[in-house]
C-alpha cells in the first residue's frame, strides 16, 4: 500500500518536472495534491476489512500500558482471578486424567469390561461366558489383590492381579521381555507358579535386568518363576491402578487364599474383560451375553430379579468399587470451584467498578476527543479480558502446585496410582477459553458502567454529589455483602456436608485396629491345626499390653475383598439376590466395636456340632423381614445347614464409605471353617506401638511364618484416598472462598469510605471532632454490612435449600454456619470501615478542601 502510493507520488513528481516544474517544487505539489496519505492508508485498511484488527492491536497496546501503570491493582486482580481459575484447572486436570485416556492396548475401542447383574462372577461361570458367547474374540477374567513379596525374609506388600491365561492375548499385548502365559500354565491348579512383571516394577526393583527371566521371586511364601515383562506403560485395565505382577488363575490358592474359588460357583469376585469381534457393537454383545447370562441362571435354578442384565462398557475406566465415590466427589468439587470462581470474578468486577470511578477523567477526556462509546467499550473490554487472561496464566501456574499437593495423597494407597495430570493441549483448551469467557462475562458490566455517557457527562463536573450516586455505592456495598453471605454459607454447608460424608463413621473402630493375615494353609496346617493356632494366637495376643480385644475373621471391611451368596429367607420358594457376608470368630463384634442391637453375638458355643446360627445387620433385618422380628427366623443357602437368626448387629460400611447400608450377615468361623483367616486386634490407645509386639507374638508361635501385620487404617487406605483428598481440597477451596469474600468486601467498603473523604474533610473543617467523624463512618459501614447480611442470609437459606438433596447430613437451617457467616461478615464490615475511617480522619481538612 505504502509502495503503491509512493509510486503514485514519484510518477506525479516526474510528470510535473516534465511540465517544467522545479523538482523540489514538484515533489511538494505532488504531496499536497495527494492529500493526507496516512488517513487514506487507514481508509484503505478499513476497506480491506483490517480495521477491527487495527483497533484490537491498538486496544491491546493500550491495555498493556494501563495494566502496567496500575501494577498493584493488576497483581491483586490477577491473583484473585488466578485462584478462581486455578481451582477450576486443578479439577479439570484430574478429570482429564480420569476421563479421557484410552488403554495402551491394541485397538482399545474394542476392549470391553463386562458386568453381569452381579458385577463379578465365579470362575465356573466365567468359563461359560467365555465358551458360550459368539460375540467376543476372547474373554479374560481378573481380580486385583495385594500380595506379599518376600525378599531376604523381608516381607513387602505389592499389588497384583490374578488373571486367566489368555489375559494378555485378549488385550493384544506383546511382552517387553520374555513371554506371557501359555495355556498349560493356566490349566492345572498350583502346577505352574509363574509370574509376569510390570515394566515399572521390573525397572524399579530389578534394574531392568533381562536375567530376571527364569529367576524366582517369593510371593505369599511361594516361589514363582518370572516368565516375562509386560510392555512399558501398561499398568492394568483399571484407570490409575498399577498391578506390579500378574499371576495365572490356577495359582488362586496361593495368591487369593481363603476359599476354593476355581470349582465352586458360590465364590464370585472375578471381573470380566473381553475383546469384541470385528463388526460387533457393544449393544449386540450385550444382548448375546444376556442370553448366556439367563442360561447360566436357569441352570443354577436361581433366576434372580433384574439379573438378566449385563453391562458392557469400554474398558479402561475407574474400578467399579471406587467409581461412584470418585464421581460424587467430583460433582461436589465442581460446584465449589465454580463458587470460588464466581466469588473471585465478582470481586474483581467490584474492583473494576471502583476503578472506573477513579478513571472517570480519562474516560471523559476520550469522549471529549470524539471516541465513540463502542470504541471505548471495546477498549475497556480488551483491558478487562486481558486482565482475566493474565489471571488464567496465574491459575495455570497455581494449579501445578495444587495438583502436586493432591498427588501426595495417593502415596497412602496399597496400589500405586499413576495418573497423567500434566498440562496437555486439553488443559490449555479448557483454561484459556475459561479465562476469556469469564473475563467477557464479568468485565462487560464494569466496562458498560464506566462508559455510560450520562455518568461521564455528570462527572465532568467534579462537584456533583447527586443522591443517585450515593445510593449506587450503598447498593454496591449491600450487594457485595449479600453475595458473600450466600457464597460463604454455601461453601460452609458443602464443606460440612463433605466432612460428614467422608469422615463418616464406618460403623466399626477404625483407628485402633491391627490386622494380621495368617496364611496357615500355605504352611501346611490342617484344619484342626489351624483352629488350635487361632485359639493360641488369640490367647497370646490378648495378653500383650495395650490390646483390648482380639478375634478372627475372613474379610476385612473396606478392602475390596468381599464374599456374597444367595440366601433363601424362611420358607420362601426363591432365593433373594446375592447378599454380602463375612465369616467371623467369637468376639468379632466386640473387637470391631460393632454394637449388638438385639439378641446375642456369635460365641465359641456356636461350633460345628451346635445348631446353625447367623447374626444379621440392621439393613438385612429391614430388607428381609420388614416390620417383623427377625430373631429366631431362618435362612438357608443351599448348603446342609439351616441357620437361625440369633442377633442383629448395627450397620457398618463394608464395600465403600459412600455406600448406603447394605444387607449383610455374619457366619460363625467354627461352623464355616475357611482356609485362612485374619487376626483382628483392637488396641486401647494408638495401635502403632502395639503392632511390633503383636507381630512378635505370632512369629514366636511359628518361626517359619512371615507375619505381615498392618494397621487397619492403612489396610483400608484406598477407600479414604479420594474422600480425604476431596475433603482437603474442599476445605482449602472453602477457606479460599472466605478469603476472597473478605478481600472483596474490604475493598468495596474501603472504596466507599475513601470516596467520602471530601465529606469528612468538610465536616472536620466545620469543627467536627475526629471521634464523631469516625463513629459516623463506621456506623454507616457497619449499618450497610448489616443490611447486606439481613438480605443475604434468608436468600442463602432459600437458594441452598435447592441443593439440599446433594448435601449429606446437613440441614440448610444449619444455625451454626448461618450465625458464623453473619458474625464474620459483620467483623469484616467493621474492620473494613474502621481502617479507612482512621486514615481519613487524620487527613488535614485544609488539604481536602483545597483539592476541591
Amino acid at each position: 500500500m505504502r509502495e503503491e502510493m509512493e509510486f503514485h507520488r514519484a510518477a506525479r513528481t516526474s510528470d510535473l518536472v516534465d511540465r517544467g516544474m522545479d523538482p523540489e517544487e514538484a515533489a511538494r505539489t505532488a504531496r499536497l495534491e495527494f492529500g493526507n496519505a496516512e488517513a487514506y492508508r487507514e481508509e484503505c485498511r478499513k476497506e480491506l476489512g483490517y480495521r477491527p484488527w487495527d483497533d484490537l492491536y491498538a486496544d491491546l497496546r493500550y491495555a498493556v500500558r494501563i495494566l502496567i501503570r496500575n501494577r498493584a491493582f493488576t497483581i491483586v486482580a490477577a491473583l484473585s482471578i488466578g485462584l478462581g481459575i486455578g481451582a477450576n484447572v486443578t479439577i479439570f486436570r484430574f478429570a482429564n486424567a480420569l476421563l479421557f485416556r484410552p488403554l495402551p492396548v491394541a485397538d482399545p475401542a474394542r476392549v470391553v469390561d463386562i458386568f453381569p447383574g452381579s458385577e463379578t462372577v465365579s470362575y465356573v461361570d466365567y468359563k461359560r461366558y467365555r465358551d458360550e458367547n459368539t460375540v467376543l474374540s476372547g474373554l479374560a477374567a481378573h481380580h486385583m489383590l495385594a500380595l506379599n513379596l518376600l525378599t531376604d525374609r523381608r516381607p513387602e506388600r505389592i499389588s497384583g492381579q490374578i488373571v486367566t491365561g489368555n489375559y494378555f492375548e485378549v488385550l493384544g499385548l506383546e511382552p517387553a521381555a520374555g513371554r506371557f502365559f501359555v495355556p498349560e500354565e493356566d490349566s492345572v491348579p498350583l502346577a505352574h507358579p509363574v509370574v509376569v512383571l510390570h515394566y515399572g516394577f521390573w525397572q524399579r526393583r530389578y534394574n531392568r535386568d533381562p536375567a530376571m527371566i527364569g529367576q524366582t521371586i517369593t510371593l505369599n511364601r511361594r516361589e514363582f518363576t518370572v516368565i516375562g515383562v509386560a510392555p512399558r506403560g501398561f499398568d492394568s485395565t483399571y484407570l490409575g491402578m498399577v498391578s506390579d505382577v500378574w499371576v495365572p488363575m490356577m495359582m488362586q490358592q496361593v495368591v487369593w487364599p481363603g476359599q476354593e474359588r476355581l470349582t465352586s460357583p458360590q465364590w464370585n469376585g472375578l471381573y470380566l474383560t473381553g475383546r469384541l469381534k470385528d463388526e460387533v457393537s457393544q449393544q449386540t454383545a450385550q444382548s448375546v451375553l444376556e442370553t448366556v447370562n439367563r442360561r447360566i441362571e436357569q441352570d443354577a435354578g436361581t433366576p434372580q430379579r433384574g439379573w438378566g442384565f449385563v453391562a458392557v462398557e469400554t474398558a479402561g475406566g475407574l474400578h467399579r468399587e471406587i467409581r461412584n465415590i470418585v464421581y460424587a466427589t467430583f460433582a461436589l468439587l465442581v460446584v465449589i470451584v465454580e463458587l470460588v470462581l464466581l466469588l473471585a470474578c465478582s470481586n474483581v468486577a467490584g474492583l473494576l467498578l471502583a476503578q472506573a470511578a477513579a478513571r472517570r477523567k480519562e474516560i471523559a477526556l476520550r469522549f471529549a476527543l470524539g471516541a465513540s462509546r463502542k470504541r471505548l467499550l471495546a477498549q475497556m473490554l480488551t483491558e478487562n479480558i486481558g486482565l482475566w487472561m493474565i489471571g488464567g496464566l496465574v491459575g495455570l501456574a497455581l494449579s501445578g502446585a495444587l495438583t502436586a499437593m493432591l498427588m501426595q495423597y495417593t502415596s497412602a494407597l496399597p496400589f500405586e496410582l499413576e495418573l497423567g495430570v500434566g498440562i496437555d493441549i486439553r488443559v490449555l483448551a479448557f483454561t484459556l477459553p475459561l479465562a476469556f469467557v469469564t473475563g467477557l462475562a464479568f468485565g462487560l458490566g464494569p466496562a458498560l458502567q464506566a462508559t455510560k455517557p450520562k455518568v461521564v457527562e455528570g462527572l465532568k463536573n467534579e462537584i456533583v454529589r447527586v443522591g443517585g450516586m450515593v445510593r449506587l455505592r450503598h447498593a454496591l456495598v449491600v450487594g457485595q455483602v449479600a453475595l458473600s453471605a450466600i457464597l460463604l454459607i454455601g461453601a460452609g454447608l458443602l464443606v460440612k456436608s463433605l466432612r460428614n460424608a467422608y469422615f463418616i463413621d464406618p460403623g466399626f473402630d477404625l483407628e485402633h485396629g491391627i490386622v494380621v493375615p495368617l496364611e496357615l494353609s500355605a504352611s501346611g496346617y490342617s484344619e484342626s491345626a489351624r483352629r488350635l493356632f487361632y485359639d493360641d494366637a488369640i490367647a497370646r495376643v490378648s495378653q500383650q499390653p495395650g490390646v483390648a480385644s482380639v478375634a478372627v475373621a475372613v474379610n476385612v471391611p473396606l478392602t475390596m475383598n468381599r464374599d456374597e451368596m444367595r440366601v433363601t429367607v424362611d420358607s420362601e420358594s426363591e432365593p433373594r439376590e446375592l447378599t454380602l457376608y463375612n465369616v467371623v470368630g467369637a468376639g468379632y463384634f466386640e473387637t470391631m466395636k460393632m454394637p449388638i442391637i438385639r439378641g446375642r453375638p456369635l460365641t465359641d458355643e456356636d461350633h460345628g456340632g451346635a445348631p446353625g446360627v447367623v447374626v444379621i445387620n440392621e439393613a438385612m433385618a429391614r430388607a428381609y423381614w420388614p416390620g417383623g422380628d427377625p430373631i429366631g427366623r431362618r435362612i438357608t443357602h443351599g448348603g446342609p445347614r439351616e441357620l437361625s437368626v440369633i442377633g442383629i448387629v448395627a450397620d457398618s460400611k463394608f464395600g465403600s464409605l459412600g455406600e448406603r447400608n447394605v444387607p449383610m450377615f455374619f457366619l460363625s468361623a467354627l461352623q464355616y471353617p475357611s482356609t485362612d483367616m485374619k487376626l483382628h486386634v483392637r488396641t486401647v490407645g494408638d495401635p502403632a506401638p502395639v503392632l511390633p509386639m503383636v507381630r512378635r507374638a505370632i512369629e514366636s508361635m511359628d518361626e517359619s511364618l512371615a507375619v505381615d501385620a498392618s494397621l487397619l487404617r492403612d489396610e483400608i487406605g484406598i477407600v479414604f484416598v479420594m474422600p480425604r483428598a476431596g475433603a482437603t481440597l474442599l476445605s482449602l477451596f472453602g477457606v479460599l472462598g472466605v478469603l476472597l469474600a473478605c478481600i472483596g468486601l474490604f475493598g468495596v467498603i474501603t472504596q466507599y469510605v475513601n470516596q467520602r473523604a471530601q465529606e469528612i474533610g468538610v465536616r472536620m473543617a466545620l469543627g467536627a471532632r475526629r471521634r464523631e467523624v469516625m463513629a459516623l463512618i463506621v456506623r454507616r459501614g457497619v449499618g450497610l454490612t448489616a443490611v447486606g447480611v439481613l438480605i443475604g442470609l434468608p436468600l442463602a437459606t432459600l437458594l441452598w435449600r435447592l441443593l439440599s438433596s446433594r448435601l449429606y447430613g446437613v440441614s440448610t437451617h444449619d444455625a451454626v454456619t448461618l450465625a458464623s457467616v453473619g458474625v464474620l461478615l459483620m467483623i469484616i464490615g467493621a474492620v473494613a470501615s474502621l481502617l479507612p475511617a482512621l486514615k481519613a480522619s487524620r487527613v488535614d481538612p485544609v488539604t481536602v478542601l483545597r483539592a476541591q
Partner: protein
Amino acid sequence: MPTSILPGTLDLLILKAVSLGPQHGYGILLRIEQTSSGNLLIEQGALYPALYRLETQGSLGSEWGISENNRRAKFYTLTPAGRKRLKEELSHWKQLTKGMALALGAEA
C-alpha cells in the same frame, strides 16, 4: 475550472478507466483527467480507498508489474464481475442523467 465529482461516482469512473486496459493507480488518475478533458477534479489520495474497496468487492483484480518508467507498480484489471457492474452502473447513470437533463431542461 475543473469541478469536483459527485459523491458516489468515483467508483464508476475508475471502472470505466480500467475497462480501457490494465493500469496502475496514477495511470487511472491520468486517464480520468484525460478522458474528461480535465473537467473533473479528483482528490488524488481518495483514489486508493476506492480502489481497495472495488478490489475487495471483486470488481477489480490486481497484480504487481513494471511501469512505463521501469518502476514496480500495482496494476488493476477489470474482473468479469467488474465488467458486469460497469455495464449496469453505466446504464443506470445514463438513465439518471437523461432524467435529470429532461427535468432540469423543462424547468429552464
